[in-house]
């Protein structure tokens, strides 16, 4: 188990990590999510003792990284930036790492086989492709058969086959009871990989919950209803405690592109925001209901003999939930911020 307590790191005037606290449980893949510049890589460097925090502690099963007798036997790390001399072979890189831990040479060859680099093991690492470099990084991380793995953007630059390989590897390692902590700015990748999410923005904790919970909690579920008697239905729903908005909610909140089956980008949302309120011919019969489930709306309509043309639950994707949560904290959030400030 990894425990991060009140971690703070300042680079000059920039507060890169701000009072960050969370724990990472074994047996799960925990995703570490945040937009670019949120402080993910800095946090990982702090966890591994490469950078010194201004305050706060990080412990692995109670011990600080620098106090581990054989650190690579406890924690394996794949950092985003490359850490291999371009003139040294993959095998020699693994070999010196193994020697520092007192690991036998056969372990080096096992790792080369694991990541499929055996045939290029004696070539200079400078000639490696991005994908081969990532494989070597995984080999280094797995060298000491560690119980804890810290992976910083492991699928960056990998082809689909490599992405699948890493994904399966992480799941398998987690199922063996290991602690997997993996950072990414790719929300959809985390949706299929991570069981649990730690979300940060501008160095601060935004969310720390299961992936499912994260989506449902941060994405307000809504139901799209289309009816020729929209006004009467709206009254009924409001009387039952639901909240009704006219037209599709295009300019606010999660599922902001709810009128469309496929999520659209912010630009589309913006365009719709200017046209939605009553402008489109069929917009009059369209309601967006929150705080009430679709079956209950259907029952209400049926009991009042109101005809429904459409009754569609709107499910938020992880991507939308993430955009919603980090909109205020993203470094490059100009679009979303101006959109919000209009309201």
């Amino acid at each position, binding site marked *: 188990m990894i425990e991060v307590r009140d971690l703070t790191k300042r680079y000059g005037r920039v507060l890169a990590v701000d009072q960050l606290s969370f724990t990472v449980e074994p047996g799960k893949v925990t995703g570490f999510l945040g937009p670019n510049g949120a402080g993910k890589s800095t946090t990982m460097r702090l966890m*591994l*003792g*490469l*950078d*010194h925090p201004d305050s706060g502690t990080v412990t692995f099963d109670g011990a600080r*990284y*620098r106090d*581990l*007798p*054989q*650190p*690579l*036997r406890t924690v394996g*790390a794949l*950092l985003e*930036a*490359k*850490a*291999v*001399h371009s*003139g*040294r*072979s993959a095998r*020699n*890189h693994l*070999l*010196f*790492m193994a*020697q*520092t*831990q*007192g*690991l*036998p040479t056969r*372990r080096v060859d*096992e790792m080369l*086989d*694991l*990541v*499929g*680099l*055996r*045939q*290029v093991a004696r*070539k*200079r690492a*400078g*000639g490696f*492709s991005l*994908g*081969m470099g990532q*494989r070597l990084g995984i080999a280094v991380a*797995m060298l*000491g*058969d560690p119980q804890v793995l810290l992976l910083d953007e492991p699928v960056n630059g990998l082809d689909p086959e490599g992405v699948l*390989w890493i994904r399966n*590897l992480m799941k*398998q*390692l987690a199922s*063996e009871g290991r602690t997997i902590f993996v950072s990414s700015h790719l929300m959809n990748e985390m949706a299929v990989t991570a069981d649990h999410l730690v979300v940060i923005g501008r160095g601060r904790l935004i969310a720390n919950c299961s992936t499912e919970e994260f989506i449902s909690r941060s994405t307000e579920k809504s139901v799209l209803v289309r009816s020729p008697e929209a006004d009467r239905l709206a009254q009924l729903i409001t009387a039952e405690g639901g909240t009704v908005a006219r037209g599709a909610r295009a300019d606010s909140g999660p599922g902001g592109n709810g009128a469309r089956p496929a999520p659209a980008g912010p630009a589309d949302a913006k365009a719709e925001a200017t046209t939605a309120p009553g402008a489109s011919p069929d917009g009059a019969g369209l309601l967006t209901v929150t705080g009430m489930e679709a079956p209950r709306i259907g029952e209400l309509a049926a009991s009042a003999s109101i005809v429904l043309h459409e009754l569609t639950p709107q499910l938020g994707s992880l991507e939308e939930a993430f955009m919603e949560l980090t909109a205020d904290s993203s470094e490059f959030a100009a679009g979303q911020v101006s959109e919000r400030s209009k309201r």
Partner: protein
Amino acid sequence: MTAGSPPAPPAPAAPAAEVPAAPGLPSARPGFGRLIQAEWTKIRSVRSTVWTLIIFVVVTVGFTALFTWLTEANWNGPHAAARDARVAGDPISFILGTGIGLGQLTICVLGALLITTEYSSGVIRASLLAVPRRLPMLAAKCIVFAALLIVIAEIIVFASFFVGSAIIHPHVQVSLSDPGVTRAVAGAGLYLTVLGLFALAIGALIRHTAAAIASVIGIVLVLPILSGLLPGSWGAHINGYLPEQAGSLITRTHAESGQVLSPWQGFGVFCAWTALLLIVAGYLLNRRDA
């Protein structure tokens, strides 16, 4: 340039990767000897180390042979009287000075590169993940480098001496049994070894290859020239205590006028400079973010 990119790696064994179980892996804190072993692997597995050492050997022995041969061939030549007298009066400085004076620059470069390339390539992060208490890593690096250097440097300085003294033999006879000669020749190897550590310390402090090499060369070559211009006895003292000036005294058999330190004192001063820089480098290595 790399000789073509290596062939693409074979597809990983299976989508669901089998991680080899490692029940037999040792789980005790490895001793310092393991770090020595690892630093040796690092130093021998990079081609630039090997090439720099080859250049050191060729330059040192080659230039010793070239300069002594040129001098020997031109002995009693026109305008050579003053030089001939100087060589005859202090043959050791002549023999050791030429080749080692140039060869020492490759040692400066090698010492600085040894640590600055860890920063430029990012290997320092791998090194510090493996050895999070950073000082043993630096200590192991210094020990491995010093051990490598002292073996190679002693072989090379004795080889240079034998080559140079053999070439100049028709005019000047000098042997290891002459007073101070063995100390001077063996001392030249010691000087080069400590110089390597001195450069390593500067490299660890500055962390950027070009800046570190420029600094070391500046201290070794330029600073003595500047301080030599200082007037009076305090100028001589400042000059005498500079790292390179003090350290190279051990390679001489004849004291110069105004020399403020004995050969061994000078070497001691050089070692003290190097130790001081290594201590500061170690302190900063612990303090700074990697």
